[in-house]
């Protein structure tokens, strides 16, 4: 189910159908749909982005637990061999050290790509991210900055991850002025977004949907390209309801959109891509068109990022809304093992919500 959806979704190669069609022409060019590109899965696309980043800037580094042999998800395969163990290296098992060290490296103008092995383990580094990285430029009056820091972490459900290999902690970070939060939905998106993150002059947390590491396969251009941050993308046009999501959840949402279409409901699907700072304009324009909004994320519903999107859109589009904003999200529990299929915001839940919102 998820497999075929991801493959089918992936091979559509992300038409840049969006309100920002012209400003994203660079993005469209970047993905160069005119020629055939090799098919890559998500971890290979990320690997390629890291290769390019290390190749194009001699003062860039990739480090974290187990990155030297290739990483537990093989995203860093071959990097130490090609660029040497002084630039691609294992760190001790210490997330606060990984991020703190990365801040110091970045403060010296280097590009520091720090890997946190699972997003579930990012919390020891939370102080360094919130109190240090996010405030480094501001508190110094712009005398110093750690913009070269990018923190990568695999996030999200994987089918059997339980409490500590499945979390989606993006909401914690979206509440922190000074950092950016970016989540790609596919291999070609991941490569371009990661390169943008690495080169962006602000510290960024980049969550990679681990479920898609091997499952998502699509053509990925081999050259060096970047995709814009803080620009959402309408990946499916529709007129009856707007759906907003990110990462792996989009393929689930897309399945629901296809089913809804059979019932005559036309769904517009938006990939937010950057959660902080997020592109309110694109979502607002869509909701002005459809009058309905549904947000879906794996993270628990209470205090999840869907709440921010909902509140902002209600502020901007109150009189246009035909129905309450729907949030189809994870339950307010730790991420369970055997109960995962019940916990997750699956297609049937989304489809039900699409129908009840449209029929409100």
């Amino acid at each position: 189910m998820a497999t075929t959806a991801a493959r089918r979704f992936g091979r559509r190669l992300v038409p840049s159908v969006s309100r920002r069609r012209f400003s994203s022409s660079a993005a469209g060019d970047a993905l160069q749909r005119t020629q055939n590109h090799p098919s890559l899965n998500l971890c290979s696309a990320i690997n390629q982005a890291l290769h390019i980043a290390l190749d194009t800037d001699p003062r860039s580094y990739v480090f974290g637990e187990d990155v030297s042999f290739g990483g537990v998800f093989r995203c860093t395969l071959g990097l130490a061999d090609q660029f040497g163990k002084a630039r691609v290296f294992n760190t001790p098992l210490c997330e606060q050290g990984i991020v703190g060290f990365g801040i110091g490296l970045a403060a010296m103008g280097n590009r520091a790509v720090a890997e946190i092995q699972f997003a579930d383990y990012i919390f020891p580094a939370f102080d360094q991210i919130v109190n240090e990285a996010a405030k480094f430029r501001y508190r110094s009056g712009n005398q110093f900055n750690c913009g070269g820091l990018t923190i990568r972490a695999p996030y999200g459900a994987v089918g059997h991850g339980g409490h500590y290999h499945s979390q989606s902690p993006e909401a914690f970070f979206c509440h922190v002025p000074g950092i950016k939060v970016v989540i790609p939905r596919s291999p070609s998106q991941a490569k371009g977004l990661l390169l943008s993150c690495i080169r962006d002059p602000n510290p960024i947390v980049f969550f990679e949907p681990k479920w898609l590491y091997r499952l998502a396969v699509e053509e990925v251009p081999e050259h060096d390209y970047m995709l814009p941050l803080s620009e959402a993308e309408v990946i499916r046009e529709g007129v009856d309801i707007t759906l907003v999501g990110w990462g792996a959840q989009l393929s689930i949402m897309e399945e629901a959109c296809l089913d809804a279409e059979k019932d005559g409901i036309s769904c517009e699907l938006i990939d937010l891509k950057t959660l902080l700072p997020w592109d309110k304009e694109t979502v607002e324009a869509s909701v002005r068109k459809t009058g309905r909004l549904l947000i879906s994320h794996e993270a628990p519903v209470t205090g999840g990022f869907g709440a921010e999107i909902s509140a902002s859109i209600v502020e901007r589009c109150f009189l246009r809304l035909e129905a309450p904003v729907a949030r189809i999200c994870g339950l307010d529990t730790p991420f369970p093992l055997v109960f995962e299929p019940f916990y997750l915001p699956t297609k049937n839940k989304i489809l039900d919500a699409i129908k009840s919102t449209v029929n409100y």
Partner: protein
Amino acid sequence: MDFPGGKVAFTPEMSFISESPEERAHCYRVLDEDGQPLAHSSFIQVSKEVAVRMYTEMVTLQTMDNIFYEAQRQGRISFYVTSIGEEAINIASAAALRFDDLVFPQYREPGVLLWRGFTLQEFANQCFGNRDDYGKGRQMPIHYGSNKLNYFTVSSTIATQIPHAVGAAYSLKMDKKDACVVTYFGDGGTSEGDFHAAINFAAVREAPVIFICRNNGWAISTPTSDQFRSDGIVVRGQAYGVRSIRVDGNDALAMYSSVQAARVMAIGEQRPILIEALTYRAGHHSTSDDSTKYRPANEIEWWRTARDPVSRLRKWIESNGWWSEEAESELRSNVRKQLLHAIQVAEKVEKPPISDLFTDVYDVPPSNLREQEMVLRETIKRYPQEYPGDVPV
């Protein structure tokens, strides 16, 4: 084949390594309490010029602390932190470094900035958070920073700077710079996870960083007996594979020699060094603290007078014929005048403009901040009397 970690000798005798050494690690000092060189002391010779400069800067630091502390008491600045008792650590360590060495301070090391040329006016500007504050008025007083002097901006968070120092040192190493990083922290800071994280990373990455711990006996009201049970901080060096030394932090010459030696090792051997400087926090933790509540007033007084590092160095330079009573009163009176003037000037300068509330969160303000600035400006227009008049709109 050996166990991971290499060859190790086996023994049939079961014995536990003691929790404490037979004898505490020795403390290196050059001058006795009367400022006279100890016999057989090994130290790097200090010229008259350097010695006198160290002394004048220590007096300047001490005077600045007294005057700014009073300014806070008078309500002219909101907050202040003194370095009373730690002038030798501040100035002598700075004197032993080169300009290209990067400094990652905690918050009780303004003397390092002073040594490098930060002016009294610049200190005052930051304390008043005025338009000339390089930090643009965003942080509390004493949160100094200067990129031109290679002194990273102070943050109130404890020990967070230590891993930054290691990352920066790794950058120097990779760029093959003839420089090192120095980071300072107190005894309390060594209990934070960031300390352990950093010193371990430094050892593994072989980073040219000098860790200077100002063990002044107190973390606000918490004495070191409530902070750790090890023989201070110096013994932790070996636990992480880091060369270390314990030094009399109130002895300017011992500080100078040990930091200079550490610097040579850090850069020449590309390794971290740990220095534990023993001292005493003779002032309160900050202007929000009254330390007589948790320690005897006569103990504080004794350290301020009998064990004052400033007068100890004075005795040495006087015994060399490099200083006099006239020079002393002239120095103190000049510094005092300059400080009072700097405060007067800083107090009158307007604050940074309201736009500085929104800049530097990111390299460029995103749309949500542009929107918030617009809304705030409208609010200020409607209710001007609700907002401080010294922040230009």
